[in-house]
């Protein structure tokens, strides 16, 4: 997403509420998310410094690999650097697709080093990571702007369930983005549990209404939730492959949302 067009898409996504701010964040795998994420503007300077620091750290580590080889590098540091910064929770709560890409690139560097790949290959992963960090900083700045204007919701600390079919679909899409992020973090069990919970706590509640509209669509999504996606995670498919399955599911969910909106309009009044 390096072009101006992609940047515009990102703006639109955040403005349209495609951030994850309506999801609940309690205890996460990477530690507690504090109320700081509801005051992004006050922390933008800190986030900029952290992104610079991160880029320097990853660059230095890859340079060490180039000059001294794998034995000179502690790949655990790649994860520690990222988990150390407050910027981590800022992007995790505001724009989860980029958060997932960050983890994907970090693991790209780690795996490449551990496999003893050519330094140039490792450098490519690191450059992609650098680019993603800057994009993520841009996304957080944009979110801070919208947050300041009061047009995006606060990050919730308690669970509030969506109450209409179309709202449930929006919530499912956000949860699936989070599945990619957790998978990119290599938290397979967390990702699998999230898929299961999303099915049981959200999709299962709307599929009765949806099946009246399009039985084959429900059938396809049932398979995605219960077979295709969990198996891809279980079998250790690449992050891009898992993301591809979820993108496909989101297309189907988009169709489902339209159908449910239409059904809601046609539904008779209670009284």
């Amino acid at each position, binding site marked *: 997403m390096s072009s101006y067009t992609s940047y515009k898409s990102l703006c639109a996504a955040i403005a349209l509420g495609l951030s994850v701010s309506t999801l609940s964040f309690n205890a996460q795998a990477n530690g507690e998310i504090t109320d700081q994420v509801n005051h992004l503007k006050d922390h933008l300077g800190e986030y900029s410094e952290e992104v610079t620091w991160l880029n320097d750290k990853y660059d230095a580590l890859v340079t060490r690999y180039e000059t001294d080889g794998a034995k000179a590098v502690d790949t655990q540091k790649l994860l520690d650097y990222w988990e150390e910064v407050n910027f981590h929770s800022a992007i995790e709560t505001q724009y989860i697709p980029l958060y997932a890409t960050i983890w994907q690139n970090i693991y790209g560097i780690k795996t490449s080093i551990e496999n003893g790949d050519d330094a140039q290959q490792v450098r490519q992963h690191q450059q992609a990571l650098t680019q993603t960090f800057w994009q993520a900083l841009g996304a957080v700045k944009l979110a801070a702007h919208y947050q300041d204007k009061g047009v995006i919701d606060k990050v919730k600390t308690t*669970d*509030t*369930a969506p*109450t*209409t*079919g179309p709202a*449930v679909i929006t919530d499912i899409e956000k949860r699936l983005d989070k599945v990619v992020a957790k998978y990119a973090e290599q938290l397979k069990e967390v990702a699998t549990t999230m898929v*299961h919970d999303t*099915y*049981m*706590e959200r999709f*299962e*509640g*709307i*599929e*009765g*209404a949806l*099946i*009246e*509209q*399009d*039985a084959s669509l*429900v*059938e396809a999504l*049932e398979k995605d*939730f*219960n077979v295709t996606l969990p198996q891809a995670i279980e079998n250790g498919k690449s992050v891009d492959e898992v993301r591809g399955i979820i993108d496909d599911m989101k297309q189907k969910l988009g169709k489902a949302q339209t159908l449910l909106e239409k059904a*809601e309009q046609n*539904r*008779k*009044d*209670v*009284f």
Partner: protein
Amino acid sequence: MLRRTFLQSVAAAGALAMMPMGIRSSFAAQAGAVSVKDLPALEGDLTLYLGRGEGGLYEKVLEAIRQRNPKLNLQIRRGATAALANTIVAESQAGVRRADLFWAVDTGSIGMITDAGLAQPLPDDLSEQLKPGFRYPRWSPVTGRIRTLPYNTQRLTAEQVPGDIMALADSDLSIGWAPAYASFQSFLTAMRILEGEKATLSWLKGVSRHAKSYAGELGVVMAVERGEVDVGFANHYYTLRLKAGKPDANVDLAYTKSDAGCLVNASGILALSEGDLPVNFMRYLLSAEVQAYLSSEAYEIPLVNGVKAPQGLPDLASLTPPDLDLRKLADLRPTLNLMREAGVL
């Protein structure tokens, strides 16, 4: 007694459906379905704990009640039914009461609250609106659902599906089930209470030899329709909704007789605080309009006299649900132990 009285009431409902509209309306009024036009306005503060329900339709009902009663300040806390029941008990133990009402999607959670002595008694005139067999002193069923055997119509006829749930264990039919699903576990609890632990364990082991597991019961019905399995265990509305979206679906419903296989379970509501307001709120849920809405839109079975059953549900008079106090379904732990022992959980 429950089975007999239920039969009488569904027979009456069936006869009612055949009457001309004018007569039907007047009979309905006599039998207990009350229009919201005749209910008192709701005024004041009310907090409802709402178990997750039918994809937003309960929300539509609540919103309609709100709009009709602008002086009602209705606060809603939503969550999984069992979790809310635990919360209510925990709040009570801490000397706090935040909820005035609890609307649960299953009677097991209702039983937990009534057993803890937290539910207020209900006036007789409210309970009497309900079909005989569904009248309880401290909680009110709202709508019902019946356990069914969806079967693939390309492979079987209704007559080939056993009318005895216990016979499924020894049949040569391939079966779809969702053991982790709450409705299945309630059904199995009913079997344990009615048939005993030994017979239920044996049934579980027998069925598991030719059963395929699915995450949910809609998944079971769809698998039956695809022909992946011959027959399944599921609540009635999944099949009705599938057929609403796909009228030529290769699935139909069969029912067992007088056993857990045709258990009628219910969603229910109870009052946690005293006074007229919580009870009058419950009257809205039992009104002719809300009962008809949940029947036509959610395919739930109305439990108030004089309201039509959902379209597509076979002859109600032929149903023979077992004689069972639904609150006993709260006793889930021994059921889960049996399922673990049988290796299905």
